[in-house]
């Protein structure tokens, strides 16, 4: 593991990825990637378009399995256990995901949040958990009187927070965010970042972003990827002020990408 700089100690890791390769058919998209994701911290993944950061993120809850002809090699340990041996339903309950574009279901606000609980056969009081999840996503005050209304009636930023609430409802240990703000305006983006900061106490997060200011503002650790490989990984403040690799420096200073 000399290649990766491990910024934290073993016991505080939530996810440990070692030597991960990923293939779309014959085309390899991720090359021998090893990365530690510490517990209750935000890890940002940055890099130019097509560098494989989204693909990598989607291997962490095995979402790539829904695409035909894909193959993964290497280990992803969640609390020390390889996710490839787990039941995928249980894994995705523990590792939630928020996508690039808000994708609420064509159902009411309430039903959107309750969805994950319902399909997992939750038998308790849904009302309380729906409220709690919406509060955690900082959306409750805005929607509490409109829970029966269609989720499509919400604005883009509200929809994205609803999607976060939906993911939080099943109380995941890890939340994967795939460019969650790329379709949102700066004010809404700030709200989502604030929300991520509040969630840090209870949730480990990995966020893919194109926006370097966002990575610098919102994350504790940053990993820089290029052409499917991990180039550099360290504390965000270090990576942005004193990058070790010349390619990282070139990217964060805007010389390419």
């Amino acid at each position, binding site marked *: 593991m000399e290649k990766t700089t491990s910024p934290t100690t073993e016991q505080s890791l939530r996810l440990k990825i070692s030597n991960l390769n990923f293939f779309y058919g014959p085309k390899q998209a991720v090359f021998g990637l090893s990365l530690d994701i510490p517990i209750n911290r935000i890890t940002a993944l940055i890099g130019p378009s097509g560098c494989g950061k989204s693909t990598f993120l989607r291997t962490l809850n095995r979402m790539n399995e*829904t695409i035909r002809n894909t193959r993964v090699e290497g280990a992803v340990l969640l609390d020390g256990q390889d996710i490839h041996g787990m039941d995928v*339903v249980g*894994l995705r309950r523990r590792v939630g995901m928020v*996508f690039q574009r808000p*994708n609420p279901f*064509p159902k009411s606000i309430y039903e959107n949040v309750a969805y994950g609980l319902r*399909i997992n056969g939750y038998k308790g009081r849904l009302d309380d958990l729906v409220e709690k999840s919406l509060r955690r996503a900082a959306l409750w005050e805005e929607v509490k009187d409109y829970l029966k209304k269609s989720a499509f009636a919400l604005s883009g930023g509200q929809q994205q927070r609803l999607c976060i609430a939906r993911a939080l409802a099943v109380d995941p240990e890890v939340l994967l965010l795939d460019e969650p703000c790329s379709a949102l305006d700066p004010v809404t983006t700030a709200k989502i970042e604030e929300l991520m900061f509040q969630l840090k106490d209870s949730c480990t997060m990995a966020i893919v972003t194109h926006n370097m200011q966002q990575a610098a503002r919102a994350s504790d650790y940053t990993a820089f990827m290029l052409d499917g490989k991990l180039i550099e990984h360290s504390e965000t403040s270090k990576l942005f002020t004193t990058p070790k690799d010349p390619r990282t420096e070139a990217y964060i200073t805007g010389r390419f990408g």
Partner: protein
Amino acid sequence: MSNARIIWRKTVNYVMLTLTGVAAFGVVSVLFLILGYLIWNGGTSLNLNFFTQLPKPVGETGGGMANAIVGSLKLLFLAAMMGLPFGLLAGVYLAEFGGKTFSFVVRYTTDLLNGVPSIVIGIFAYSLVVLPVKHFSTLAGGVALAIMVIPITVRSTEEFLRAVPGSMREAAMALGASQWKTIVTVVLPAASGGILTGMLLALARVAGETAPLLFTAFSNRYWSQGWGQPIASLPVMIYTYAIAPYDDWHRQAWAAGLVLLGLVLVSNLGARFILARTKAI
């Protein structure tokens, strides 16, 4: 640019606009001509008796087609019960599960089945259901109509499922839903309005079919004695009454046509209503 060219260009533009406009107007007027003709010829025979009474014997005027109206509804019910589930499930398969080669075969076959002349489907149902028991039956008519309902339902179901964005499937799967659960809880509800519309239109389309019923459900001057017995239907009644030599029968055939067209119009409007309502959500 010369003046002549500008005039030429404007003329071509004007002529083409007129041609397309006339064609569009023609299309609309055909429906209204048919409707007007039906009302003109059959409107007088359309009274309460038409809906409540059985056909009168030859020579007596009056009477109605209550048995044919109920018969058409029973045949459509059978077609719906047998054809719609098949069409729905096959449509789900094509849109959600199917691989490349087999899906292509299914899709192609479905389109061919849709193009099979209805009389041929009648013969098929005849040899499949009528010949073994040696008499015409409601069931046989239902089978014939069901076969016609299937391809239309398959393709419309597939189209509407494909219109559901993939991001919704991803969202459900990311919450731990299996593929089947994703389809049942998210994709199908999202497409339900469209799918229902397609089903209604498929039924409306076969409601007017005569050929597949001629030697399957046959016809009946009285109430049908059960699913295993011949039954009257509006299209076959129209056929029988229109070629008979009695003026009163002709008027009743027109009235039956009016009722049939009304049925189709109502289901079309219902379909549009459902679609508009689900789009609003």
